[in-house]
């Protein structure tokens, strides 16, 4: 998957937070590499974008997402992070479905909500 990113294939990662009894929160991040700028671009659907000189910085930015949760007592929270295969070029959609390299492995466990000052 990262090889595809290096070859200029844009990837779309979807964050989805499901709270019991509430509307889910969803965020889609588009990862892209610019060969001209030699930088990685991260943009959010409906929002602004940033660029990174290194891939690790890009991945760190993807992993580090802040969500504003409804003000209520602690509730069970389910987070789903997935690669949106439908946004891949058609020729890659079938391999992305079958090839294990295209499976997005969550390297971080579910973290408790962090209060933002």
């Amino acid at each position: 998957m990262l090889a595809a990113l290096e070859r200029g294939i844009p990837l779309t990662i979807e964050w989805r937070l499901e709270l019991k009894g509430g509307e889910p929160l969803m965020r889609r991040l588009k990862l892209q590499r610019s060969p001209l700028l030699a930088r990685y671009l991260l943009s959010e659907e409906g929002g602004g974008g940033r660029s990174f000189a290194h891939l690790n910085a890009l991945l760190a930015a993807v992993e580090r997402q802040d969500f504003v949760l409804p003000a209520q007592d602690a509730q069970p929270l389910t987070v789903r992070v997935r690669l949106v295969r439908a946004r891949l070029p058609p020729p890659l959609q079938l391999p992305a479905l079958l090839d294990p390299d295209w499976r997005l492995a969550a390297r971080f466990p579910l973290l408790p909500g962090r209060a933002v000052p």
Partner: protein
Amino acid sequence: MSGWRGLMAILALVGLFVALLWLALTTTEGWTSGEGWFAPVMSVAGAAVLLLAVLIVWRLVGLWRAARRGLPGARLERRLLVLLLLLVLPPLALSYAFALRAIHGSIDRWFDVSVESALADGIALGRALLQDQLARAEAEFEQAAAQLAMTSPSQAAGVLAGFADRGAASQWLLYQPPAAVLALEASDPSLLSPLFPDEGQSLLLAAGGRLAVAEPLAGTLALRIARRLGGSGTPVLQLVRLLPEELARPLAGVEQASLGYQRLLFMRGSLKLTFSLVLSLVLLFALLSALLAALALTRRMTAPIGRLAAATERVAEGQFAVSLPVEGEDELAFLARSFNRMAEELGALTARLAASERAAAARRDELDAVLESLETGVLGIDGEERLSLANAAAARLLGLPSAELVGRSLSRLAEARAELEPLVRILLARAREGSVRWQEEVQLPRGQERQILMVRGARLRGEREGIVVVFDDRTVLERAQRDAAWTEVARRLAHEIKNPLMPIQLAAERLEHKLSPHLHGAERELLQRATRTIVSQVEAMRSMVEGFAEYARAQPLRRQPVLLAALVEEVLALYEHDHTLVVERELSGPIPPVPADPVRLRQVLHNLIKNAIEAQENLPQKAITVRLSRSEREGRGFVRLDVADRGPGLPPGFDHTWFEPYRSSKPRGVGLGLAISQRIAEEHGGQLEAAPREGGGAVFSLFLPL
């Protein structure tokens, strides 16, 4: 219902075809237009192909079952289907292989080392250009920073405004981190909002004190340069400058081209796989479509033939009320029309034929009835010398049931019934020599009698070979003629001989009376002996003449119920005085009375008993056995009276002629006893027969009908 199903199938096919075409086109053209739709379209296409396959399998199973059940047209439909598939499959497979090879080759030709190198060079050139632009902007940035260092904070905006007016669209921002704007000057309305560095850039700025990058901004490229104006805690000066359009557009184009090439290079294998998959789906679609079309076509072609086959089968079963639908004006319509006309004509013909057959059957029944009622035997003999016809009279005269006669060859008939051999011999000879008409008298041995048949034959003309033979039993007629002749002889004998007897006897007695007194001694004795001889012989002749007269005399029967046992006892009582005679009686059975003339029967009994006694004349002890019993002859009931003796038995060559007059084995008999007895028996509708007795002697049996 089938129409809806067909319409749905067609719609599904069209939808599938369009989806596959669209899928193929989007995959060929690129990936952006198909984004998000590829997987659903592929799923729908796969499902449609599966549905099509299920539909075809269902139709094929139905077709195979119909063929196995032998439904009309199913086998032909199956054969045509296989033929069409054999025609379609090889070119389809060939096209598929060539198309696959062409696609893979075409994809491989997309990639070229020189193109890749040129694109890499383009990117390098773009980077160099950006670095140059960045260096120029940095130089200008340093000039502004130097001027700001020499001016008071309140004059900073004026300095920055002077730099903002110099060139390309840019934003000059003086701020106190993190986001306190001290001064902002922009040369473009789109840059009026402060463009603070992002989090990473801020960290970099904080760490290194300087930032100079090129980045995307507002759909184009921008240069961002920033640094603190002094030590820690001093404000940050930032310049954001949009690249001029004449630079940004070619750079973006170079980057997009490079990205596109890199993407294609990366997706090379996937592209081949996807194209192969799409091509396979299209091929499968084409194959299934061809199969479905072949099914529909063969069904359409064979349905009229199947209807024709079914109708033919019905016609073969004799159902002519069939009519095939005539659709269109093609050859099948012509065939259906011709078949309908043929069935109609066949129906009419069959009706006429049935009427003819009924008439023929009626005539045959009439002929059978006539044949069965004939007293004349009729035989049909075919070209293979087999009996093909035998009426009841023939069966009766030949002594065999009709069922055993018909179908039997003449040679087998002679083997089975030796007494029929003379008849068979003549029939075979006449059949083989091909006589057109012939007539012969045939005598068949029937025990002690012989059956006389007058046989007439004629050769069959026409398609059927063979002969027809009719024959009559002349036995009774011949016997009647013979009896009549004997009666006439007897009557003439009685008349011609009886009259001179009395004068002869009187003349002899007168001679003796006149001459006897004149003769003496030996002469007188000679005269007396000669006279006695003449008288005795005249008496004998008179007796014989009386017998002939009795034979010739026709007396009407006076029938009455007669208990034969009593009659026999009555007659036997007359012979009880003879102590040399032993009479055995077996008369105890339940014998019903017979309609007969007791006087004539008594005469028969006397004749038979006298015959039996005379046959044992030389025996010191004579014995006769009289037995009464019931018997069946040709389906009729008879009372049988047997008179058996223990004499020398029947003479050699004894046959029915011994029952005619003047046949006797006795030296003194005139041979009229048996003839008279036979005549009396026949007058009663019965028969007199003779047979050797077991242990010696003879048995004479009188059969009288009940």
